Each structure stands twice: as C-alpha cells, then as structure tokens.
C-alpha cells in the first residue's frame, strides 16, 4: 500500500463497484421488483459517488449523483424498474466507467444526453411498484468504532444524527472501554453506542448510515421483534445471501459464487505484472535446478546429491503453486457476456437467453484475457446469424427465446469451452457455394462435412447476405481461429440444420510449461509435446530400407504416413541404426516422426521464438535444457498437416 497513486487505488475499487452495479442491473432485468437487488445497485451508486468525490473524480461524482437520485425513486417504490429504465442506467454506467478510466474531458455532452434519456424513461415508468410496504419496526443497533476512527475523519455524532433522521431514537453510550485519564489519548475513540430505533425504513437504510465505515467497525443490528443478529464483516455477505436465497437463476448463481469466492477467506490484490515476474523467476529456477541436477548426478559427493534432490522437490512444489496462483475462474469472462447478450438482444430484436455452466472452471489468467475477443465474436455470430427472428422461431415450432449455452469444463490437461445455439444451423449449400466462389474449393470436389464447416474460418469468408453492424464482413472467424491457435488450442464446429450449431474450443491449461518428449535428430535436440504423442516404436534398419521412397509405414494393421525429420531438417547426416518412430496425432489424424534417439521425458518452460522465426511453422517455441542448450519445440499440428499433404499426394499419384 506504499507509493501507489491514490487515484489508481480508487480506479481499482471503482472497477469492482461498476462491475457489481452492472451485474445487479442485469439480474434486475431477469427478476424485476426484487427489492434487495435494487438496494444493492443503489448502494453501489452511492458508494461510487462518495468515494469518487473524495478522490477528486468530481465529474464522476456529479454524474453518479444524478443517477443515484433517479434510481432512488425506484428504491423508494415510486417508480418501477422497467427494462427501458435498466437499459438507460446501464448506458449511464458505461459513461461512469469512461469517466473513471479516461477522464471527463469532452464528455459533458454525452453525460447530459444520458441523463436526459434517463429522466425521460423515468417519467414513462412512473407509477408505484408492487412493493411490500415496510411496517415500522423497532431495531436495536449496537456499534463501536476502532480507536483511530476520529483521526481518520469519522464523526460518531454525524452517524448518530443520521440514525435519528430515520426515526425516533434512544441512544445510550457505553464508557466501559475508556481508559484511565492518565492513559487516555484524547484523539482516540473508546466509546460504543446502543441505539434503539423505531422506523419504517428497511434495514438497508440503517446499514447505509454506516456505509463508509462498515469495514472497520463492529455493528450489530437486531430487530427486536425477533430474528437476526449480524456482525458487520458478514453484513454485506448476509445481505447478498438472503437476497439470493429465494431465486436461483444461473446468473445469480454465478454472482453468488463470485461474491462468496471473494469474501470467503482473505485475499490480496497483486498487480498482474508482479505475478508475471514471479512466474519468470520460477521458470528460471526450474532451469537452474535442472542444471544442478545434471551436475549432481555426475558427482560422487553425496551431500551435493541430496541437496540437489531437495532443491528439485522444492522447485517442483513452487512451480505447482505458481500454476495455481495464476488460475482464475472463467466466471470473470462469462460475467461480461451477460451484458453482451442483453445488448445483442436489443440490437437484433431477438429474445436471447444466455445460460452458462462450469463458471468455476479455472484457467491461467493470461489465457482468459485472450479468449475474450474470440468468444465475443462467436456469440455475436450466433446471435446474428445462428438464431432466427422470433417469428421464424415460432413458425418452426421453437420457443420464442433463442438459447445460447456457454460451458467450460476441464478435460485432462485442457479446458474445453463450448458455445451452442438452438438456431437454424449452418447452411452447407451456402458455405459450399461461397467456397467455390472464392476458389477455395473446386466445384464438385469431394469434401467431408467437417472440412466444409472449417471453411468458414478462411479469411474473408462470410455467407451473410446482409452485413449488419455486428458481423457479416467476414473478418471475424479467421481471426478467431488464429487467436485460438495462438493459444495452442483448437476449434471445432458441429451443426445440425434447423436445430443449431455447436462450437468447441480446446485450450491447454497453461501456456508456460509443457510436458515434452525430448528427442535427438542429427546433432540437434527437439521436444515433442507429450500430450500429442500416441506411441513410440522401433524402426529397424530393414523397415527403414523397405520404406525408402514410400512415406507410409505399416503399424499393426494401419498405414500411417511418416516424415523423416532428418530429411525435413536437412541434416545431411547418414542414418543411424536404432531410429525410432514417434507417432503423434491431433485427435483424428496421425503422422509418424522418425528420430535418431528418444532421450526421455522433459518438463520444461516454454520460451517464445522471436518474430524473426515466426514464419518457421515447424516449431512453436523453444525451451532451455538442463545443460543450458536450446531445444526447439515441434508444432504437431503443422507436422500432421504436412503428413496429410504427403498422404494425399501419394493417394493421387497411385
């Protein structure tokens, strides 16, 4: 908490508040008239205004004040929270975000417009909500402040005055904690108060009085007619829980999970760059430890060897812990899509419902960021092209609301994220026509359904007859595919005409470390990702001789195309007697790679190759070995494709 810019501190808090406000508003859309949600949103606006003013964000405070006043009418039950009103507040929220991030210069006109819109919608929505009238209740409120409260600017008298404004009060102060005069520091606060308050206002109004000091004080609020005693630290969490207790819709589930995840146990904010630095250090430690291991195993010094083993164990544990530290639940991403779906729904005029599963699935934080854009594009596509208009859906006998389902699940060392829609499916004929028109496919050429569907990832490909503001320009899908492949992932599509489409993204859990098979080809060493290796077999000199001139090898009863890496890498060295064949696959297709020697398993930190080597597709990266040397990591997908090409050429030639 040292020399951080106070404005940055506020920005971080503000982002959280804005996020909560947005989620709260989206929840309201689904279940309008929920008082607790309204109160939660109002509290968020109120805090944003207060803190904003304190940290010098005057334009933000002023703007938020207007929104808060407008939303206060909803809170008081004078106005219903209609979908139009919520959209207006959502737009206002976006403006608030812009004020926080980019500053207020040049935004006055925009702000004015949004407020005018808000008031207009407010006027339309006027009319009492079907709210539960709160009966006057008597509350016992006990609170005490920390010793340094007054030094920090908290005035207990102001708090008491505010309580009085809620209704008739009886205040009793407790002087039990006040020390003897000789020890008393006049600026410290040692008093505690018990207030009996009779008011028609809801409990939330009472909590609001303490809204700025909630974190540091002890607060107990008890309705004297019965029920709950709540300690301050849990007060906020309890409010959320009781609100969510009634209905459990998927969005609320996610919000609850997120709220609980944040409140359960302490957490510390760490700037992302520090985590990255830490990760680099751990990576280098792994490399250094690997060298130590080599030196130790070549030595007869038992003390050295035992220390080396100890270091190996510790380095391994540290690395495992680091992997976990960087994992973040995918709910952070899914949360954004709720807003997107809401906006898409309004823009396309289609009723769209987004349901999510597996929100707690965790991914490396860097991966999550890079998945955002591709997923946004896929959702837009599904909403724009996949889902039919309400009329079309009714005519087809489908429910009027289009369904989009996002799910994430761990599968081995990968995460599988799927997006399904129950729309019209992909029109094969149109795809084919477009492919032939673009010269990607010869007319009448045979092609599997899977390959045909993969065509939509070609640059410039779009079968949309109308270009909307959302999609149809054909620049999206190929970027999506490239981004996913940049994450060493794959993307698959299946689709049933009339019923819908299903996109499936497979991403490895981490970009940083790879389990590999270390092999030697000529004088160079190479790493093959272990996840892609199916099996290794001996290649006897006879088999080798038999296969010269051919590029297929018989493995059990199947023919597998193979590549002699020695030739591919132009080593110009003679064959070695004990070559091995490593069969790798990318799920459906396989290729065999002939290497001179299999050295062994190797878990290593991946180092990226520079831009100067970006065009060498055979390699996806490099790694540093125990002896300080470099081994290049083979790009299995590329090699498999090369093998496939070879196979086709042979098939065509025969």
């Amino acid at each position, binding site marked *: 908490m040292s020399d951080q810019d106070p404005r940055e501190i506020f920005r971080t808090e503000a982002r959280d508040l804005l996020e909560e406000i947005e989620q709260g508003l989206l929840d309201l859309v689904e279940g309008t008239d929920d008082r607790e949600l309204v109160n939660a949103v109002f509290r968020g606006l109120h805090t944003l205004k207060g803190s904003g003013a304190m940290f010098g964000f005057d334009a933000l405070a002023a703007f938020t004040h207007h929104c808060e006043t407008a939303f206060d009418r909803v809170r008081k039950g004078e106005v219903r929270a209609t979908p139009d009103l919520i959209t207006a507040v959502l737009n206002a929220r976006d403006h608030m975000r812009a004020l926080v991030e980019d500053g207020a210069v040049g935004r006055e006109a925009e702000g004015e417009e949004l407020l005018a819109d808000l008031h207009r919608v407010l006027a339309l929505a006027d009319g009492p909500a079907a709210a539960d009238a709160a009966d006057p209740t008597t509350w016992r409120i006990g609170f005490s402040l920390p010793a340094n409260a007054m030094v920090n600017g908290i005035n207990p008298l102001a708090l008491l005055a505010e309580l009085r404004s809620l209704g008739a009060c009886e205040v009793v102060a407790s002087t039990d904690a006040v020390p003897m005069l000789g020890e008393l520091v006049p600026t410290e606060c040692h008093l505690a108060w018990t207030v009996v308050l009779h008011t028609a206002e809801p409990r939330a109004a009472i909590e609001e009085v303490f809204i700025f000091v909630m974190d540091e004080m002890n607060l107990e609020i008890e309705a004297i007619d019965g029920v709950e005693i709540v300690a301050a630290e849990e007060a906020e969490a309890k409010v959320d829980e009781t609100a969510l207790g009634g209905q459990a819709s998927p969005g609320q589930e996610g919000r609850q999970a997120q709220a609980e995840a944040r409140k359960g146990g302490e957490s510390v904010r760490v700037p992302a760059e520090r985590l990255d630095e830490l990760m680099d250090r751990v990576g280098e430690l792994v490399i250094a430890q690997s060298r130590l291991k080599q030196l130790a195993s070549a030595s007869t010094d038992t003390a050295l060897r035992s220390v080396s083993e100890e270091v190996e164990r510790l380095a391994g544990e540290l690395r495992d812990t680091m992997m976990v530290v960087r994992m973040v639940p995918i709910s952070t991403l899914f949360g954004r899509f709720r807003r997107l779906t809401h906006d898409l729904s309004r823009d396309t005029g289609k009723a769209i419902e987004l349901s999510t599963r597996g929100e707690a699935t965790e991914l490396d934080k860097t991966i999550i960021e890079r998945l955002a854009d591709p997923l946004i594009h896929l959702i837009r596509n599904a909403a724009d092209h996949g889902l039919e208009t309400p009329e079309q859906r009714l005519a087809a006998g489908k429910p009027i609301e289009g369904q989009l389902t996002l799910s994430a699940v761990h599968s081995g060392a990968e995460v599988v994220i799927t997006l399904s829609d129950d729309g019209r499916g992909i029109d094969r004929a149109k795809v084919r026509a477009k492919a032939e028109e673009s010269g990607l496919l010869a007319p009448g050429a045979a092609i599997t359904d899977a390959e045909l569907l993969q065509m939509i990832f070609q640059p410039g490909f779009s079968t949309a007859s109308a270009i909307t503001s959302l999609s149809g320009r054909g620049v999206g899908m190929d970027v999506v595919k490239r981004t996913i492949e940049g994450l060493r992932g794959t993307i698959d599509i299946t689709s049933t005409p009339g019923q819908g489409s299903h996109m499936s993204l497979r991403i490895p859990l981490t970009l940083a470390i790879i389990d590999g098979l270390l092999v030697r080809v000529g004088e160079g060493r190479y790493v093959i990702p272990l996840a892609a290796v199916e099996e290794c077999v001996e290649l006897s000199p006879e088999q080798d001789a038999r296969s010269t001139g051919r590029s297929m090898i018989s493995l059990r009863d199947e023919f597998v195309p193979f590549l002699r890496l020695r030739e591919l890498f132009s080593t110009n060295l003679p064959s070695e007697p004990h070559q091995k064949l490593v069969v790798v696959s990318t799920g459906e297709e396989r290729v065999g790679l002939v290497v001179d020697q299999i050295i062994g398993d190797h878990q290593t930190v991946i180092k990226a190759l*520079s831009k*100067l080597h970006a065009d*060498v597709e055979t390699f996806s990266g*490099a790694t*540093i070995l125990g002896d300080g*040397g470099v081994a*290049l990591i083979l790009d299995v997908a590329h090699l498999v494709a090369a093998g496939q090409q070879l196979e086709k050429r042979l098939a065509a030639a025969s």
Partner: protein
Amino acid sequence: MNQPDANLNAEDLVEVLTFDLRRETFALEAGLVREILDLTAETEVPGAGAFVGAVINFRGKVIPVADLSFAFGLGQREATRDSRIVVVELDLDGDPTLIGLRADKVHEVATLSMAATEAAPRVGMRWRQDYVRCVGRRGGEPLIIPDLACIFAHRGEPGASAAHIHSLH
C-alpha cells in the same frame, strides 16, 4: 534512446561500436548493445534461412542470431578465436527484441562525427543501397553504418546484385 535510426542524425557526435565482418568494418550505435558474447553453443533452426539460421540461450531467453554478412553478400564465415556475438536490442514491428549479431572481430567503442560521413555511393557497391545508412572513415578505411531497421524489415534478403569488381578500398 533505443530507436536505432531516429536520433542518429539529431546529434553530430555518436558513440558507436565498430566490428569486422570478413574484410569490411561496420559500426552500430553503442546504445543498442546489451552484451558482447564469446561464441557459445548454438542451436540451428531448420528452415529458418541463412540470415537467422540459429538461436542461442541468452540469460534464460532464446534469442535469434543474425548474420549481417548474409545481408551484404560477404561470403561464408569461419569461426575464429576473435568471433563474437553482439547482443543488441532492436525494435521489430513495434516490439523491442533481443538479437545476437555475428561479428568476426570486435574493435572498440569510438566517437563518430556524423558530419564527417557520406551517403553510400551509387555505383561501385556490391550490396543493397537501402541497407547502408552512410559511410564513415576509420583509420583511413571505410566504416559502414548499416540501416538495421531496413535490413531487419526485409529479413536480411540480399537482393539481386551483380558482383561488382569495384570496391570501396
């Protein structure tokens, strides 16, 4: 500070590192240099081409080794005891990138007066004109200041150039 060519003309005196490649002497801005390494274990990158045919381990990073003699068509190299790899940090398409440059022999850091340099002559040059920023003098011999940004933008392609009999000597 790290933009190789932007400031070269802004001041008259520039600190440069001079080094030999075959029989030619080159100079590059000393501010770009991170470290000068002895020849170390290199890993060949099959399929990468002659300009950046290998990578090395530099302080835990895997960096490419570029051979400017390929860009200038200077012929095959032979590793000697004087051979070095000069690690520089250059801006490649907007990203600062560490690159190792081969050198047959590294001389010294010298102060070069830009006013005393000339543009590369149009005739009599064996190599691509756009690869040479200007030519100075060092001990009576020509000192070539390469345009690193241009060379790397073209990935070191030497281009079609007839072998000229004339040389600068």
